[in-house]
């Protein structure tokens, strides 16, 4: 079966979407990513969509679902490289993708995830000391 590869980068997962996905492939990716987050205990997910020339409500829903699922599993999601024409179209479509952070490229996305991971780790140890 056709699949989008998921790479592990330290505590994070990276998926780079380079093909025009049919709906089943979108759902497979959603399931695969969720499973890998659990398996690897990843703390962050980078989804590179710079190769997508459109995001419709089906793909938008997947991005939202992944981010929601990741949050429950204590991982943060950053969407990378959304083309400006795609971002403008998404707003008009009516999709705001609440709770999804975006970054220009993978480096910036990694910076975001690392910073947020450090913050969360500090909160955790501060909480431990207090408790």
């Amino acid at each position, binding site marked *: 079966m056709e699949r989008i590869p998921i790479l592990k980068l330290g505590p994070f997962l990276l998926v780079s979407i380079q093909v*025009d996905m049919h709906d089943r492939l979108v759902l497979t990716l959603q399931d695969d990513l969720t499973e890998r987050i659990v398996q690897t205990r990843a703390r962050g997910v980078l989804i590179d969509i710079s190769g997508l020339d*459109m995001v*419709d409500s089906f793909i938008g829903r997947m991005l939202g679902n992944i981010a929601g699922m990741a949050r429950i599993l204590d991982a943060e999601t950053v969407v990378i490289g959304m083309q400006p024409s795609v971002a403008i*179209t998404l707003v008009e*479509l*009516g999709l705001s993708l609440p709770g999804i952070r975006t970054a220009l490229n993978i480096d910036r996305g990694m910076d975001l995830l690392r910073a947020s991971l450090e913050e969360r780790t500090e909160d955790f140890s501060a909480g431990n000391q207090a408790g």
Partner: protein
Amino acid sequence: MPATKRGSLSIRSQDDVVGVRQAVRRAAVDIGLNLIDQTKIVTAASELARNAFVYGRGGEVLIEDLQESGRRGLRLSFEDHGPGIPDIQKAMTDGYTSGTGLGLGLGGAKRLSDEFQIFSEEGAGTRVVITRWKS
């Protein structure tokens, strides 16, 4: 209004929905739509093709080039012979879905197009026509 048929595609599978996106992109590039307008009409087409497949039990799209007093446009007509839409106003409402979608397809396609028409009859099918003009 002079309209030239560019082609028609049947929508009977998820792969056909991808095929519609790609054909509409080619047509949009061909008539000289800018990147944002290309993306808008391709996204609208993706929503309507999926609706024809999922709710209309398959259908087809007619792609036409328009020419009117020197300006060019693209017209897409989606048609299926599925169950039809009992309450169009409700179906057009953002957030309404009878399935598992986000309920943004019809409303979104309307916002992403310059012109939008929908005709539906219960038991007979649905036809949605959208147009995007070159600005």
